[in-house]
C-alpha cells in the first residue's frame, strides 16, 4: 500500500518552492496520507463501463475564433512586478542559457 513519506513531502515542497518547517512537514504528510486513504475508499466503487475522463464537466471542444482582443496597457503590467526596468520586468540575473 502506497503511503507518502516525509521525504516525498520535502521533495515536492522543494519543487513547489514551499518552505516547510519540520512541524508543518509532518502535518502535511499526515493530511496527504488521509487524502490517499480517502481515494483508496473511492477505488472500491465499481467503474467498469465508466469512460475515463480528466474532466467533470459535460463539455468538450470549447474554442474561440483567432481574433485579437485588447491587451493590458504596458504600464499596468509592469506595475504588477516587484522589480522593474521599464518597459521590462527585472529578475535576479539568470546565468544559465537555454
Amino acid at each position, binding site marked *: 500500500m502506497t503511503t507518502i513519506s516525509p521525504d516525498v513531502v520535502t521533495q*515536492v515542497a522543494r*519543487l*513547489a*518552492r514551499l518552505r516547510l518547517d519540520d512541524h508543518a512537514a509532518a502535518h502535511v504528510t499526515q493530511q496527504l496520507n488521509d487524502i490517499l486513504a480517502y481515494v483508496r475508499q473511492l477505488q472500491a466503487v465499481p467503474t467498469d463501463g465508466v469512460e475515463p*475522463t*480528466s*474532466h467533470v*464537466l459535460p*463539455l*468538450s*471542444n*470549447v*474554442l*474561440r*475564433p*483567432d*481574433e*485579437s*482582443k*485588447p*491587451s*493590458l*496597457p*504596458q504600464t499596468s*503590467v*509592469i506595475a*504588477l*512586478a516587484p*522589480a522593474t*526596468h521599464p*518597459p*521590462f*520586468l*527585472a*529578475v*535576479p*540575473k*539568470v546565468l*544559465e*542559457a*537555454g
Partner: protein
Amino acid sequence: MTSVMSYEPVIGLEVHLQLKTTTKLFCGCSTKFGAPPNGQTCPVCLGLPGVLPVLNARAFDWGIRVALAFNCQLASVMKFDRKQYFYPDLPKNYQISQYDQPLAQHGHLEVVVEGQTTRTRIRRIHLEEDAGKLLHDASQHESFVDFNRAGVPLLEIVTEPDLRSAETAYQYLIELKSIIEYLDVSTCNMEEGSLRCDTNISLRSQGTETLGVKVEVKNLNSFRAVKLALEHEQHRQATALARGERIAQETRLWDARALRTESMRSKEEAADYRYFPEPDLVPFMITPEQVEQVRGQLPELPAQRRARFQQQYQLCAYDANVLTQSRALAHLFEEAVRAGTPAKPVANWLMGEFLAYVKDKSLEPAAVKLDPVWLKDLVELVQRGRLSGPMAKTVFTQMLDRGVPPQQVVGERGLEQISDPAHLERLADEVLQANQKSIEDYRRGKTSALLHLMGQAMRLSKGTANPQQLSALLKRKLEQGQVNAPQ
C-alpha cells in the same frame, strides 16, 4: 579498444514551431513579432488568478493540418496538461502543454539522402504555449523579462531516434521547413525564434541494437548548426568511447563560434515536471469527419510536387527537388513555364542565378519581387540573341534589385547585344586596323591571334557585341584578306 569508425549515431530531433496565428493559444493577445515589450499580455497569458484559457480554433485546425502532412494518427480525444517548473520567463510557473494525450502520434516523414530514401518516424506532435523572453545583456545584476511571447502557440514535432547521420538530420529539417511553408502555418524564421530545434544523439556499435547514453544538444540557431553540432558530437563521443571512457548523460550547448559543444553542468537532478491535467481546459474530440475535412483542404505537398515536376516537365530528380523546396520558387517556375517558356532554361535561371541572389542577400525566395513573365521575357531575349549570357546575368540581377522587367533594364542601360551586321562590321574593321601585327600573326598560322582580336573587339563594344557573330566575321575577314579602313 574499438575504432572510432565502428560506432553508429542514433539521432532524434525535436522541433518547436511557432504557428503564425493572429492571437495567442489561449487568449486574444496579438502574437505580432517586435511589438513594444510587455505590451501584448493579459490576465490569461500572465496567469493572474480567476482567468479561463480558451483554445484558439485556428491553432487547433493548423495542428491537425501539420499532423496529417506528417502522416500521423490524430487522437480521437486530446487534452492539455500543466508542465510545472519555475523559470523567470514562465509567468504562471507552469506551461500548458500536452502530456499523455497529444494531438497526434505515429507519423513518418521520408527524405532522400544521397539518392536513398530514408523514413523517419514521428513519435508525436502536440500543441503548447511558448514562454516569455529573457534578456541577459543589458545589466550586470539583473535579467529583463518580456512576456509578449508567453502564450504564443507552438507545435512540437518529435521524431523517434531514427536518424542515422548528421546529413539525414539536416535533410529532415529542410523537408520539414518546406512542408510547413507549403502548409502556410508558420514563418519558420529561426532568427525570430519561430522555428527552434533541439537534438539528441547517442552512439552504438555498428550492428547492435542496444542504445548508448543519450546526450541532448541545445542552442542550435540554424539547420547548419544542427548538422555541425551533430558531426562534432558524434566525433567527440566516438573518440571518448574508443578511449574506453564513459559518456555522461547530459545536456550540452552548441558554441557556434568555437564550433564545439559544452556541458551545461547545471542540472544536478533530473527534471520533475509533475504533469497533471489542465483543469481549466476541457477535452477536445477529433472526429474522423473533421480529419477528412482538413485532409481535403491540404495543398499539394513538396513530395507530391517533386514527383509531378519530374513527370510533367521532364525534370531530373535533383532539379525537381531544388525547385520544390520553396513554395515560392516552385510557383515562379510553374508560372514562367505556363507563360510559355521552355522548362529547362527557367529551371536553370531559378536554380542558378536566382538562388545565388537569394543566398547572397540572405532572403527567402518569397521575399524577392519577380514577375514570372519577366523570366519568360529574359529567356526570350537570350534566345533571340539580343542578350549575351553574361549580359543576361547583369540584367537578371538588376531586374531583382529594382523589381522591374528585363526590357526596362536593357533599354535604360544600353545593354542590348549588338547583332546588327553593319555595326559589327564597323567594329571588326576598327579592331583589325589597329592590330596589324595580329593579322600577320594569324596569317602565319598563329590562330590564337583571333582570340586577341576578339578580346579587343569585345572590350571596344563594352561586352555588347554578339560574340558568335563577331568571331565568325573576324575569321572571314582574316581569311579573305578583306580588311577595310574604318569609315
